[in-house]
């Protein structure tokens, strides 16, 4: 179960990093609502969320199951669209983009890491990682080289040609991170990346994500259940029944 940390740490930024608020936000939610039809009525998964995610920030989203965390991530990358309100990515309104433009945005601007890894079982490790690069029109050779480099950075050298089901959960999640990074996106979205891992592998994955933010300046948006994971974030916000209850700067 989630145990909230001390309010001052949850609400503010860590003192060691200065984030510039005058820039356009990486992602901005403006009074966002998302309703789903449920048993004949509309059920609001998100009701009136306003949230700024700064560039380079490592933001953790906490909340109980069903509180709307995944929906929030989906809205950021245009996998889902709000029923009301606006989502801006680098100041651009996702609602004004075509499906194709949103696909291109997901491909180049976002790297996505899922709880259940969602790797392609028919592809090898290296092929999985190079997939988004090739979707973006990169040559086979070049995408393969980039994949190899990323895999060795993540400690997976020598596993390039393995089939996916030969890897442990932790390894699979690292492959997923490599896949998320292949197009060098400025924003990483991670939906409970440690939810399916033992704590040791989970820590490795979290360290990876932290490094992406600290060392490479990427924006990381992570949904999590675990209090350990919150330690790695710059800022934590809480969702309850589709509303932001703390930290929604």
């Amino acid at each position, binding site marked *: 179960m989630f145990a909230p940390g001390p309010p001052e740490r949850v609400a503010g930024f860590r003192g060691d990093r200065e984030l510039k608020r005058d820039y356009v936000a990486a992602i901005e939610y403006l009074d966002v609502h998302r309703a789903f039809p449920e048993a004949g009525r509309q059920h609001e998964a998100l009701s009136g969320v306003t949230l700024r995610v700064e560039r380079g920030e490592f933001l953790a989203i906490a909340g109980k199951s069903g509180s709307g965390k995944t929906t929030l991530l989906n809205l950021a*990358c245009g996998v889902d669209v709000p029923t009301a309100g606006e989502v801006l990515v680098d100041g651009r309104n996702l609602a004004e983009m075509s*499906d*194709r433009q949103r*696909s291109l945005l997901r491909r180049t601007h976002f790297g996505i890491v899922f709880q259940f890894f969602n790797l*392609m079982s028919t592809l090898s490790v290296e092929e999985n990682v190079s997939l*988004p690069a090739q*979707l973006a029109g990169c040559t086979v050779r070049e995408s393969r080289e980039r994949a190899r480099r990323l895999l060795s950075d993540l400690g997976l050298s020598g596993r390039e040609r393995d089939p996916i089901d030969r890897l442990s959960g932790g390894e699979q999640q690292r492959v997923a991170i490599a896949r998320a990074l292949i*197009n060098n996106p400025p924003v990483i979205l991670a939906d409970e990346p440690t939810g399916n891992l033992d704590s040791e592998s989970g820590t490795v994955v979290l360290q990876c994500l932290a490094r992406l933010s600290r060392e490479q300046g990427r924006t990381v948006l992570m949904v999590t259940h675990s209090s350990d994971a919150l330690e790695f974030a710059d800022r934590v916000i809480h969702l309850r029944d589709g509303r932001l209850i703390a930290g929604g700067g």
Partner: protein
Amino acid sequence: MLLFRLVNAKQLFRRPAQTGLCLLGIALGVGVVVSVDMANRGAVAALRSAVDAVAGRATHQMTAADGGLIADETLAHVLAHPGVQAAAPVVDEFLVVEALGNRPVQVLGVDPFLERPFRSLTFSTRSAETGRQVFTDLLTRPDGVVLPESLAARHDLVPENSLNAIVGARRASLRVIALYTPDAPRSDDGQPLIMDIAAAQELFGRSSGFHRIDLIAPDDAAASLAAVLGSTVIVERSDRRTNRVEDMIRSFRLNLTALSLLALLVGAFLIYNTLTFSVVQRRRQIGILRSLGVTRAQVAWLFVLEAAAFGVAGSILGLGLGAVLSHYTLAAVGGTVSSLFAPVTAEDAALTWPTVTKALSLGLATSLVAAAVPAWEAARIEPRIALGRTVIDERLMRWSPGFALAGIVLLGGAAVLVGLPVPSLWPGFLSAFAIAVGFALLTPTLALWLVGVLSVLFAGVAGVVALLGVRNISASFSRTAPAIAALMVSLAMVMGVGLMVRSFRLSLVDWIGATIRADVYVSPVGNVAGRNDAILPPEVIEAVRRLPEVEAVDTLRRRSIVIGGQRVNVLSANFAVLSNRARYLFTAGSRDEAIRRLLSSDAVIVSETFSRRSGLTLGDTLTLDTAAGPATFEIAGVYRDYTTDGGVVMMDRSAYERWWQDTDLNNAAAYLRAGADAEAAAAALRSALGSRYQLIIRSNAALRAEILRVFDRTFRVTSVLQFLTMFIAVVGILAALLALLLERTRELATLRSLGMTMTQLRGMLFVESATMGIVAAAVGTAAGIALAYVLVTVINVRSFGWTIDFRLSAAVIAGAWILALSSAMVATLYPAWRLGRMSLAAAMRED
């Protein structure tokens, strides 16, 4: 039943497209079988009624052995013969009537009083006359004809209308004195005009002779009558005549039925596909049920029940569909029967209980057989919550070498069957079936092999999107392999039949090129198969000879004789004229040598159908009953002949006239001087003779076109079946792809969330389905060629006795490939469209 509702019912309604496609597949399969069945029955009924309309209530019919006329005095012998209860002479002619669309119509000349026991007709006239009065009128009015009511109605004719007719050498005016309706409703073409026999003889310029004498007599009386009259006449039971007609089209019907069963095979695949898909979808649910104590047998039953539900519902739909389709197949089959055997107008057949029973049991049996593997797979699910994917895909991959081996064994068996030297059609059908199944069993291995090759290729060059496309095939192998096999079988059928028809047509074109060499052909109306009494008046032949551009005239005389109980056509032609003009295609003997012998001695050449049937060939001798007694002829050659499936014995005119003392002629063929225009010569003849004689004058080009037109009409029914089979195959591949996509919803949504555009997704789906299409087309090409070979060299030869040169036609094969790839493309449209409409967020939540 709670179990069924829990597991099956919800699923069926949750996936309406899936369920709908499965039902459609079975309905189409059953529908094709039903429609072919109904069309076959309709064609037989039409043929039978055409025969019955002619035969009336006669128990026996007497005809002249030579296919000509029975002498008048024979009638007296017949009537006086003990045991004969009734006998009626009939003149059976053709007449061109302006008001009946200027087409030849059949006219029966009957003796009104002798005829009465044979037909009960209901007459309608302008005044309220009785049947007796109509008969009296017929006797007293030589221009009087009685028309079938339906025919009259169609052409707006009523009693007392007068008709302009062309009869032989002159025009004649006839008067409708009454209309009749036959005692049983029959097809229109079976209903002749009726007139008085003496009037008919006069009208057709004969003073005597009948085409046949109808008899009502016990068998022994008929037999003794035949014995008394000797070899000049043939007495035959009427029902034998009907049976002979049915025999003629039996092998044709058998061919159609075999084709229609292939369509059902594809329907079976759809059930398999749908059920396997539901097993995959319901794994978790079944696992839970098993842990709650549901037995394996109960789980298997659930799927058997589902298959039965599909089978029954699909068959009922199929019955309706078949009834609708039968309208078209019947028209096509009727066309074929008309061109091959006898002119018929088939009326829509009604759905009968035997057909209904057959359709339901076929539909149900097919469904249950198709359910076997999925039900077994479901029963194997362990009693725990099954999260993993089905293992059947892997198992199928491991088994595919075994399948391939079985396939090779079957193909070997097919080769052995083809070689069996028996006249029956069954080895041919069995080997065709073995070819279809054998190649289907080879398909998985070949598919895996191609997927392997393409994987290597794509991994290096085309990249991961294409790679995903091909690898999906092996990842869902238990679904894709049968889909490929089903498409392969359909393509093989389309190619096999297409190549056979093509080979046949090309052989026919060759034959036409060699045989139809004269520039203008002249024949009398009524010169139809089995009728040798339509004579070309000598002055017509003179007129042809006198035409300035004519260089030489060949004439043809046709007569039937009976050899070993079979009617055989004896043809005679002027081989002196033909020798350096026509090139008969000899299958035994050399042309020059044969013609030399024909001109110099009592020699004949025989058609290959005759040779095959009699067992006689080059160098054998043949004894024929001539007018001057039995005579022995040497067989100087065997030649190809597509004009009739009866046998033909051909000799030179000089030999014929010597042995038969007969100078009548049936046809003339004029060869023009170099540079002369055939159309112009035909037109000149038409204007010179057309108004006085009832002639058909055709240029070479017109006759060739007519022969090919008849051929194409004959094979239209196969195109209808080919089209239906392909349609079912497209439904099959569509259903398979749709199932695969639904199964992979989450995976595809993941790809989309990684930034795959709809265009890329469509590309991936297309690579997947095009690969399936390519495998199916490649294996289908091999299977299709093998099938065509069996059709051409075994089934066709044994059905009709004709040799066809086996030809590979690039157009037919390319057509099938285009069909395969375009149906693969079409099949991706709907699934891609559905995916495009689906919310990604929702798809990601799918398990």
